[in-house]
């Protein structure tokens, strides 16, 4: 419906309402007039007299029956056909006849003629100018008819001037003009108001339509996000920090931790699943957290008494004066377990990868230790022959035998076994064997240090020694492609998970060796692998730099090198887990940083930075 049509509809409705109101007014006016007319007749003209005999005056009969007749039609139509045009005209006719009746009942008093003018004004309530015409015609018809047949009763004389009619009618027409203009103006204003209301209606409907559409969109969106949120393993939640309860929590949390929705909503629920006693440091941080984002990992209690490791992330905000956390909680117990398994697997992969090299490294000293021992064992046979010759000489001298002959045989035996050579080389062989065994022992110790068992807590470790050990077991990986240069600074003991740090260093060394290998290829030359450590007292952190002279990381790969399963190496040479695990270990488990600087064609340097001041950052990182 366009605005004009709507405006017309509103105009019609308003006019009908106004006319219904006028109907209501006239209904009561008619009844009041009837009662008043009867009262008037009874007071002014109760009886007609003939001498001493009285009879009911015609005026009384007229007021009762004539008044009822006058009211009958308009009241019936007001009831039966309130909006019909004929009803309004019957009201106009009847009302003007009421004027005539009153004029007669009051003996033609001039003052009563005002009823005509008041009636016209009442009729203007209908805002229908045509009614004024009808009413005026009734007045004129009454005046003309009576004036024609009984001129003296109207004009006071039997032969009035022709214009006397116009004189009387003129005043009525004058009021008609005023009322007509009033009606027209009122209708015009109603048109304007209707147009305005239609315009407002249209605007309102448009706004309502938009609101409805937006609400539907919002509802769909909410439903979609609810489904999305509740279909993931992360449970959405709202935590009221003031009351320590969860006004809203996703179904995953209810299912996962076993608490009912009402238990989550109960004040103090936070203390049940996440007690202040076991999480005092984190609860203090929550109490103190300001508005902004947050993320932390906490171990929470399940309804079955078990515990789950949960990662909480979201926003801390003030809702209606209440401090709340809103976000997602995710059970990462399984994730953590898989992470540990992945790390262990990666370590095993490294061990497997190193096994051949380590075997080779051990094999060389074993070989020459074996040769030397063989030499010593053979030499011992010769030396035993010489010792036997000398024991014969000793016996000859003690028993008075042929000493000279025995001495000659002893000399012959020394000469035969080249005793001087043996006396010089056997100690050397034994020394070489000891050295070989020492090299083997070093490799074994390094292996043992590298394979440092996983710990639940950080321990203080000598990072320089750890790196040395790692270099030993990785020797076979780089010895053909690079020269090692180490610059170990003086370091304090660093709190860390040593086994995992060893893994990170090894991964970076192997990556560096591979990068250098790609550059030197078959040139026969060697690249350079530099490892340095230093203590940054200002930052209270230890920094380890592993730099290579490889080809550098291509621009396209720089943003993805820490992504899991991303690798630029050929198939079989890398799994794409090394740097991802390195970052996880350094950043997530130690609260440190791992970054790199690279230049194509010149090489890459990885910077490991481990803070000294955190004991267990993985469980206590709260960013506010």
């Amino acid at each position, binding site marked *: 419906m366009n605005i004009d049509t709507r405006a017309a509809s509103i105009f019609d409705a308003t006019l009908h309402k106004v006319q219904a109101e006028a109907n209501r007014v006239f209904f009561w006016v008619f009844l009041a007039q009837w009662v008043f007319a009867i009262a008037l007749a009874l007071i*002014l003209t109760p009886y007609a007299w003939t001498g001493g005999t009285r009879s009911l005056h015609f005026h009384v009969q007229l007021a009762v029956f*004539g008044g009822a007749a006058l009211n009958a039609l308009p009241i019936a139509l007001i009831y039966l056909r309130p909006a019909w045009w004929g009803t309004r005209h019957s009201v106009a006719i009847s009302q003007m006849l009421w004027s005539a009746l009153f004029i007669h009942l009051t003996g033609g008093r001039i003052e009563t003629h005002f009823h005509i003018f008041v009636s016209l004004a009442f009729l203007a309530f209908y805002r229908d100018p045509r009614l004024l015409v009808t009413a005026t015609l009734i007045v004129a018809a009454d005046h003309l008819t009576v004036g024609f047949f009984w001129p003296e009763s109207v004009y006071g004389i*039997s032969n009035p001037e022709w214009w006397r009619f116009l004189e009387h009618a003129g005043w009525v027409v004058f009021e008609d003009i005023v009322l007509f203009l009033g009606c027209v103006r009122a209708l015009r204003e109603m048109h304007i108001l209707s147009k305005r209301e239609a315009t407002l209606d249209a605007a309102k409907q448009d706004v309502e339509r938009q609101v409805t559409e937006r609400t539907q969109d919002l509802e769909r969106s909410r439903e979609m996000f609810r489904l999305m949120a509740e279909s993931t393993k992360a449970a959405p939640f709202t935590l009221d920090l003031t009351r320590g309860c969860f006004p809203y929590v996703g179904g995953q949390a209810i299912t996962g931790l076993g608490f009912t929705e009402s238990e989550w909503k109960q004040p103090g629920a936070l203390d049940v699943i996440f007690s202040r006693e076991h999480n005092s440091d984190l609860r203090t941080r929550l109490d103190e957290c300001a508005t902004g984002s947050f993320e932390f990992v906490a171990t929470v209690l399940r309804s079955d008494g078990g515990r789950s490791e949960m990662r909480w992330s979201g926003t801390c905000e003030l809702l209606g004066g209440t401090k709340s956390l809103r976000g997602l909680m995710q059970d990462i117990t399984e994730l953590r377990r898989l992470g540990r398994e992945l790390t262990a697997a990666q370590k095993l992969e490294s061990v497997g990868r190193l096994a051949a090299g380590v075997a080779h490294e051990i094999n060389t000293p074993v070989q020459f230790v074996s040769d030397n021992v063989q030499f010593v064992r053979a030499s011992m046979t010769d030396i035993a022959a010489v010792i036997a010759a000398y024991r014969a000489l000793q016996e000859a001298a003690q028993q008075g035998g042929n000493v000279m002959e025995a001495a000659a045989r002893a000399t012959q035996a020394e000469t035969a076994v080249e005793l001087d050579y043996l006396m010089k080389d056997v100690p050397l062989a034994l020394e070489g064997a000891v050295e070989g065994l020492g090299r083997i022992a070093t490799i074994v110790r390094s292996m043992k240090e590298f394979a440092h068992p996983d710990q639940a807590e950080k321990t203080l470790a000598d990072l320089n020694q750890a790196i040395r050990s790692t270099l030993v077991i990785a020797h076979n990986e780089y010895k053909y492609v690079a020269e090692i240069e180490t610059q170990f600074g003086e370091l304090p003991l660093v709190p860390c998970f040593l086994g995992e740090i060893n893994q990170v260093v090894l991964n970076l060394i192997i990556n560096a060796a591979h990068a250098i290998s790609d550059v030197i290829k078959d040139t026969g030359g060697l690249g350079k692998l530099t490892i340095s450590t230093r203590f940054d007292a200002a930052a209270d952190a230890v920094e380890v730099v592993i730099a290579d002279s490889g080809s550098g990381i291509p621009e396209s790969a720089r943003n993805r090198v820490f992504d899991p399963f991303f690798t630029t190496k050929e198939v079989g040479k890398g799994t794409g887990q090394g740097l991802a695990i390195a970052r996880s270990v350094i950043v997530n488990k130690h609260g440190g940083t791992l970054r790199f600087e690279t230049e194509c064609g010149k090489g890459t340097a990885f910077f490991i930075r481990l803070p000294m001041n955190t004991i267990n950052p993985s469980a206590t990182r709260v960013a506010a």
Partner: protein
Amino acid sequence: MAIDGDHPTGGTSSRLPIAAAPLTLSAARCLLVAGAALWLVGIGYGVNQLRHFESTPGVSGITPDVWPATSSLRPQSGRSTLIMMVHPQCSCTRASLSELNAIMSQAKGQISAFVLFIRPTGMEQGWEKSPTWSQAERIPGVSVQLDPKGAESTRFGALTSGHTVLYDPGGQLLFSGGITSARGHAGENMGSELILAQLARKTNPQTHAVFGCALTDSPLSAQR
């Protein structure tokens, strides 16, 4: 009673069964038109009856051209004498007295007036002291008197309330008739104008219809 209109076409027709709607609508309309016509006819009849009632004059007797010698009243010397004979309970008397008041005001002392209130036979004393008696007494230059059994009225030929006669100072009749234009209607009327005109010119006696109640119970008076 529901008198709100919320249907543009209005009426009860919209509540009628659809199948019968054309016939019923037509019948309702015919009924409506017939009713309206009947109403108009009825109203017209009523108006006509009213006009007939108000415009039908009462009976007038024969007023003597010379002041009757048997009358207890005497014409005033130097001034015309006006006598109005009224029924004290007739509602038309108010209009007649109202017009008399206007005449006395316009005559400016040229008239000496009497208003005779009739008391028919059988009516107790004081019956005539109606509000119109007081009204008459308040008119300047008017003498109010009781006319027991209508003896004086009969002498002056008055049979209908409001009948007024005017004699010149010499006792010659100048006017006889009513001074209202219809029953109980005050305002401009030929009778008043004739009286005022006779005061100035004194021509032949003038007459005018009398509108009012019958003064007596006599068949002659009640024949209207």
